[in-house]
């Protein structure tokens, strides 16, 4: 399956509610995540997606 721009956009969209609710979920386990931690995690996710898109995305050489 090709890693298209559309799929990347939809993945980014779905990552936002997960990131926002991360603090609540961590709270259930008595872990107090500060906002900045959530921002960093989301940023890392976006960076990972960016790299994957570069490797396997539309227009890349490698077979996906």
């Amino acid at each position: 399956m090709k890693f298209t721009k559309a799929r990347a956009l939809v993945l980014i969209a779905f990552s936002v509610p997960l990131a926002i609710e991360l603090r609540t979920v961590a709270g259930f386990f008595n872990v107090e995540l500060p906002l900045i931690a959530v921002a960093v995690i989301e940023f890392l996710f976006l960076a990972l997606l960016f790299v994957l898109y570069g490797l396997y995305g539309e227009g890349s050489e490698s077979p996906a």
Partner: protein
Amino acid sequence: MATTRSDRAFVDKFPHEAAIVKATFLVAFVALGIGAFFGLIQALHRTNVLRVIESADYYTMLTGHGVLLAIVFTIFFLCGVFHWAVARSLNRPAESRLFSWAWVGLMTTGTVLTTVAILGGLVPNLGMSADVLFTFYAPLQAHPLFYIGLAMFIVGTWLAGADWFLSYRAWRANNSGERIPLQTFMVLTTMIMWYVSTIGVAVSVVFFLIPWSLGLIESVNPLLTRTLFWYFGHPIVYFWLMPAYLMWYTVLPKLAGGRLFSDPLARVVFLLFLLLSTPVGIHHQYLDPGIAEGFKFIAMTNTMFLLLPSLLTAFTVVASMEHGARQRGGKGYVRWLGALPWRDPAFTGMALAGAMFAAGGFSGMINAGMNINYLIHNTLWVPGHFHLTVGTAVALTMMAGSYWLVPQVTGTKLYSRPIGLLQVIMWFVGMVFMSNAMHRAGLAGIPRRTAEPQYQNFEFLTPIGSIFELRVQIALGGTLLFLSVVLFLFNILLTSLGDESDRPVDAALPEPLSGPEGSPRILDNLAMWTGIAALLVILAYTLPLAGIIQNGGGLFGGGLPVPATLSAGLDFVVVTVSSAFNTLLGVIA
């Protein structure tokens, strides 16, 4: 065989119907643009990020926002969708062009009058104001123009329904014994529900609010106008939702590359909504002291039953999407999701809208529970909830659907699919920020409908975040949403200005996997279902209304309100009925 455009495009086959749809969409989109702008102003104002209006004008904005988006945008758009769906599925034009234009004209005139009355509040010295919010019950009072416009608008929707029933009758004359085509079935059941429920608001506006705003009567019974409003105020949410369901059931499977899972199940769902959506309005009044707890309990029970058709919908729609994905080569338990046509903004927008609706359904169950409702009543949680339902499940489905419908009525190709895709994604992300923070703020006790909530010095547990963080989220979300609307309107405008295309869009809708043949014919007996719906309404509302009129000092209020109990309502009915009976006996004797 080569097909010419005339075989395909709705606009060539039904040019007059296409013109009506274009007109209703135009009004809807103008309302969307203005309403979204007001939404942005509010979101920035109440979070103290940017203040361009006086706080005293906040209610004027909020009324404009609620009326233009929740009443004008949604209903004009759905009238267009229904007009399209009836002509398409019966395969015949409307009976009278003049009649169709008459309802469009009446609804539009009513909208203009109401909007003028609202916006008049921004002009000092005009002496006109209608800051009554989109729920417009007493004791807030508006300029008579507001109610008169509203009445015209509602009568316009009644005529629109008559238009579709006339088409159906004419079709029936040539097709006796056939099953009602699915889309027409959906339109007709929705309109019956609308007729049953708008009686409440019509009585309230014509007999109480208009005479009261004109000074013809001294006072009204506020609880009575509230109850009549909510008698209509819950079914209106299904009036918004049914066109979205119509698109999810009949269009979304096609966009996903598959077919609707089950036609009979879709019919059952629409009938359940017809039966259950009116006798539940009291669930908006859990905190009203003038209504006995027992009636609230009945409303809550009916509300929980309403979950059934929504869960049936979730099942059918997801099953149809999965079928589509597997047709496209999707495999695995979850990997098939990747095989869906995410590039298509019409598909992606509707799918995201459906996903958000699930979240809205969960927060709705909190609202519906009599006891936990107290936790969130009148807090920002409530706008958080309905921006997921009407504000996304409905509004985003309508915008996404436009990417597929507008080309059919203009005969031009969509201007830009990538911009469309970006637009629906922006709506989703913006709404995640705004609605999530609204829910959290509500749990923290921040009220809705307030220009200046004062909570600077509060700190909450980290899982909720600080008030500052919540405010930033709401302002950020509101800004993304507004930009999304701008992109949408821009894309639609350029689409309608584009060149004629031979094949603007693939408009064919495939047959369902399981067709109507196997389903009981009784499903199509609309008269019987209307009767049952009316009966349920009478059962649910007679006693509460009797109690409200008796305890609230009569039809026109004025007396001192008395705390309500079930037995007081019963007493009142017994006394009224027996005295009427005695009078009758006296006349006869």
